[in-house]
C-alpha cells in the first residue's frame, strides 16, 4: 500500500533495536518482577479478605463464598497493570521519532522511498509489538489462580483486550510527543504529561456544570477501562480508544509532514 510504504522494514528494525537495548531489557525485567510481586500480594490480600468474609458469614449462619475472590484479584491486578503501563509506555515510546531526529537517521528515512504513513505505522507497530511481548507473560498469572481451583478467565480476557486497546491509545499519544522534540528525555516527560492529563481529566467532573460532566468523563483514559475490568465489552469503550489513538496518529502524521517540509534542524 502506497500510504504505508516502508512500514515493514521500519517496524522490523524498531523491534530489533528493542531486543538489543539494555534499557528495554531492564524495563522488561522490572515490569515482570513488579507484576509478579503485585500479583502475589493482591492474591494474598483478597484470599485473606475472602476467608474473613466466609468466617463472618458462618457466624450468622449463612453459607460461605460471599466474596468472589478471583474477580477481586483479577480486577485489582488489571488496575495495577494499567498503572504500570502509564509509567512504561512513555519510556518505550520516548525515542521512537526523537532519536531518529537527533541521530540524523530521519534523513535516511526521508530520502528513501518511504511514505510518512510508513514511518508512522512502522514505528507504532514496532513499539506496540514489543509492548505486547512485555504484557503477554502476565496474562498467564491467572493460571496460578486456576491451580488453586478458582479463576475468572472471562475477566482476564476482557481485561487484556482493554489493556491492549488502552496501550495502543497511550502509545499513539506518546509517539506524537516523540515526533515534536529531538530530545528523548523531553519526549518521556512530555509523554507522562499528556497521559496524566487524559488520566485525571475526569477527576474534577463533579465540580463542573452538569453538561460538561459526561464529556470530561468520556475523555478519560481510565474511565473507559471500568467495563473491561469487570468482564464487559462495550463498543463505547472500544470507540474511545480507537479514536483516541487515531487522533494522535493523525497528529504525528502531520508532524512528520512538517519535518519533511522544514527539515529536522528547525524543530
Amino acid at each position, binding site marked *: 500500500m502506497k500510504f504505508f510504504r516502508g512500514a515493514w522494514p521500519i517496524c522490523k*528494525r524498531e523491534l*530489533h533495536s528493542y531486543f538489543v*537495548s539494555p534499557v528495554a531489557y531492564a524495563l522488561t525485567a522490572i515490569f515482570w518482577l513488579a507484576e509478579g510481586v503485585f500479583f502475589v500480594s493482591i492474591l494474598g490480600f483478597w484470599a485473606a479478605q475472602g476467608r474473613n468474609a466466609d468466617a463472618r458469614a458462618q457466624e450468622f449462619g449463612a453459607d460461605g463464598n460471599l466474596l468472589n475472590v478471583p474477580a477481586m484479584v483479577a480486577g485489582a491486578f488489571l488496575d495495577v497493570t494499567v498503572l504500570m503501563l502509564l509509567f512504561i509506555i512513555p519510556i518505550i515510546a520516548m525515542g521512537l521519532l526523537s532519536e531518529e531526529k537527533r*541521530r*540524523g537517521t*530521519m*534523513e*535516511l528515512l*526521508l530520502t528513501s522511498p518511504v511514505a510518512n504513513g510508513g514511518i508512522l505505522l512502522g514505528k507504532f507497530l514496532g513499539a506496540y509489538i514489543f509492548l505486547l511481548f512485555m504484557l503477554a507473560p502476565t496474562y498467564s498469572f491467572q493460571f496460578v489462580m486456576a491451580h488453586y481451583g478458582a479463576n475468572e478467565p472471562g475477566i482476564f480476557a476482557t481485561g487484556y483486550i482493554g489493556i491492549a486497546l488502552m496501550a495502543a491509545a497511550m502509545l499513539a499519544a506518546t509517539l506524537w510527543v516523540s515526533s515534536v522534540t529531538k530530545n528523548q528525555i523531553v519526549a518521556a516527560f512530555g509523554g507522562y504529561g499528556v497521559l496524566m492529563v487524559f488520566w485525571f481529566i475526569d477527576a474534577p467532573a463533579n465540580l463542573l456544570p452538569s453538561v460538561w460532566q459526561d464529556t470530561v468523563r468520556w475523555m478519560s483514559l481510565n474511565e473507559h477501562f471500568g467495563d473491561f475490568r469487570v468482564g464487559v465489552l462495550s463498543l463505547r469503550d472500544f470507540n474511545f480508544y480507537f479514536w483516541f489513538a487515531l487522533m494522535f496518529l493523525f497528529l504525528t502524521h502531520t508532524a512528520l509532514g512538517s519535518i519533511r*517540509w522544514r527539515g529536522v534542524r528547525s524543530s
Partner: protein
Amino acid sequence: MIHVENLAKRFGSIAAVDNISFDVEAGEVVGLLGPNGAGKSTTMRILTGAMPPTEGIVQVAGHDVATTPLEVKARVGYLPEVPPLYPEMKVRNYLRFVAELKRVPRKERAGRVDSALARCWLEERADQPIEQLSKGYKQRVGLAQAILHDPDLLILDEPTSGLDPRQIIEVRQLIRDLAGDHTVVLSSHILSEIAASVERIIVINQGRVVAADSVDRLAQRFSGGEHVTAQVRGDVDALRRMLPNVAGVASATVVDDPEAGVWRCDLVAEPDIDIRAGAAASIVKAGFELVGMSRSEMGLEEIFLRLTEQGTNDHAKSDNQAA
C-alpha cells in the same frame, strides 16, 4: 543529470536558498562551496527529493523533485553531514535494512550489500556493531549506504568533515573511485577538499550562486596573471630597482627576508605570459644569487574570500579585529 532553475526555499520569512540556478552533466564531479549557512545543505536536501522547494524547478535525471519525489529518490544516494547510522546495528544488518528501505528487489539485496561492503572496504567490519567503529569507518558505512541501490547521482554533504588526515585521504580516494560510474555532487567548506576532489565548483553565498566554473578558470579569472615567488640573495635596494624591469613582469614587490640575506620577492606576470625562465635569467645576469623560484597559483582560499566578500564584510571585519 541535474537541472536547477530559480530554486528558492524559505522557512517562514527566512530564505535559506534564494534563486539558485545551475546544471550538472552526467558523470561530472561538482563541488558546492560556500560559508556555513550559505544554503548548501538545503540545496542538497532538495536535490535528494526529501524536501520540496518553495519555488523553482529542480529536476534529477529528468524527474521533478516536487511532483515525482519517489522517482528521484530511487536515483539518488545521499550522505548527510552526519551519517545516518543506527549505532546498535551491525554494519551488514544496517545495510540490509537500507536495501529494504530503498526497495532493492529481494533477490538482489545480498549481492548489493556485499558489493557496497567491498567498495567501501568494510568487509572486515561487516559483523561489528556500528557503535564500535571509528569515525572514519562510520563515514564509510555512510558512503556504503549512499551507493547501496546503485544510484545515478551521489550527493555527499561534507563527506570528510571531522576525519583525521589519513581518513580524509581514504574517503577522498573512495569518492574518486565512485566518480567513475556516478555523477557526484559534494559540498564542503574546506577548500583544499573541494580542489582535491572535483572538476567544477559552484560557489554559493547567502543563498545565491556567486560563481560556477572549474577551479583553474576561477583562479585565472580572479588573479589576472601568474604569481611567481623568487628567493634571491643580494643587495635589497638594487633588487628593488632591477625587478620591475624584467620583461613580462607587471609588478614586483620584495616581501621580506625569512632567511637573513635571502629576499622573498613576489612577481606578478602580465596575463598569459610565463615569466619564470626570463626572470631567472635576468636575476642571475644582474649579479644576484637566485636561491629558489616557484609559481604560486592563486589559492582557493583567496578566491573563496573574494567571492563571498559581499555581504559578509561585517564578519570579515570582526574576524580581522579578533586576529
